[in-house]
């Protein structure tokens, strides 16, 4: 494995993108940083801008307003980067499936601009922090 990927696994910095979540997933994401779960143990750090990020945590269905913003945030993230679709909504629209404002799940939107995007799914409504941590670890192990 190249040193680039190795060090990426050791310190994934994440940026949190809310594309239309009900805010419950967001609360669980923030929960991961609390003393109980402490993701800094794995070198995971929440950063304030996609330019510093190695992973995007996308929560919620992609709404019509959010789709172009999600694409821009993705394009501004330096590659290699991993996208995490957090929650049932982001993975496959969940309870908002028939909503008038919904354009699609995260993977469909991103694959339109970058067919090779690395996307990991963490289902649940909302997923438990344990599930998210195990998702991140598994995804990093797979690349």
């Amino acid at each position, binding site marked *: 494995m*190249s040193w680039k990927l190795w*060090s990426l696994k050791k310190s994934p910095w994440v940026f949190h993108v809310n594309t239309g979540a009900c805010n419950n997933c967001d609360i669980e994401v923030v929960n991961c940083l609390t003393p109980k779960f402490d993701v*800094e*143990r794995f070198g995971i750090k929440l950063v304030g801008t996609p330019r*510093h990020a190695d992973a995007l945590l996308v929560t919620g269905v992609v709404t019509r307003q959010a789709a172009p913003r999600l694409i821009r945030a993705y394009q*501004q993230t*330096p590659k*290699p980067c991993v996208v995490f679709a957090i929650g049932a909504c982001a993975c496959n629209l969940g309870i908002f499936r028939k909503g008038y404002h919904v354009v699609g799940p995260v993977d469909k939107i991103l694959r339109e601009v970058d067919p090779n995007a690395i996307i990991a799914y963490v289902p649940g409504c909302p997923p438990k922090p344990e599930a998210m941590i195990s998702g991140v670890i598994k995804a990093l192990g797979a690349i």
Partner: protein
Amino acid sequence: MNDLLNNLFWILIFPGFVFTVTCGLLAGWVVRKVTALVHHRIGPPLLQQGYDVMKLLGKETLIPEAAQKVVFIAAPLAGMSGALVLATLLWRNNFATNIPYLGDVIVALYLMAIPSLALILGSSASASPHAAIGASREIKLVISYELALVLALIIVIIKAVGNSKVTGSPLYLSSLAAVTPVFSISGMLAFLVAILCVQAKLGYVPFDAAEAETEIAGGILIEYSGALLAIWQLMQTILLIAFPLFLVTVFMGGFDAGTVSALLLSIGKYVLVLVLLILIKNTNPRMRIDQVMKFFWYYCGPVLGFAIVLAMLGNAYGLGWL
């Protein structure tokens, strides 16, 4: 030729780049670990800071289309060189006291301003509104703390003038390293203010308005990514050694590595300053930029003025503890 090689060795290997960065990465880990302990967390592994820099070096470097590219790329390099020369200067002054002149406190003062100026230049060149806000805040921050820092150093110099142990000019770093002003009232006041100035120079809470991740999304560093961000990180790493070392040199009698016990004592001094910085960082909320300015000018200024009077009285009447 030999001189040139020697200088290069000092700056690049010991006590410059390699040595300082290694120590700085460890110090950076201490910062994160102690922060985690304050939060009742476990915190990152020992080599985390190293992984971070390594990863950033391996990532794609994006340069914004509208950016002023030359300045955008040159600013981190300039900032890091400034920090590097500062660190080398301080270490050399502490290790090789037999060299008569190796830069004085004024040189150190100028070198300490270079990283902030580089940050301001780099962020203004990046054509991002958030970075512009960050840059303007950084400028105001510099204006606020420089005055207090200079006043605090004046007290140290007055103390050195009154001390019979000082042989060279009282402006030389090596002669300042021979006195310990913290063991006097005025010196203690100056030290307390200087530690806050260093806090502001490092961009730590409560003086992190220029970076403010939750508010302006990383401010001055918002557009930097990949290798350029890694260089900024290295600069911060070097500064994390250089600034506390400056305080140790000027206020606490220098970093003496002559014998093992002296070396342990010196490391103790450095760690003391570092832990003070971390505790201030973790127990305070972020201040607005106007509050920072008021704090340094209206509160620290008069306190230091008072301390200067005390120090001069102490000199006039031969009272070392004043």
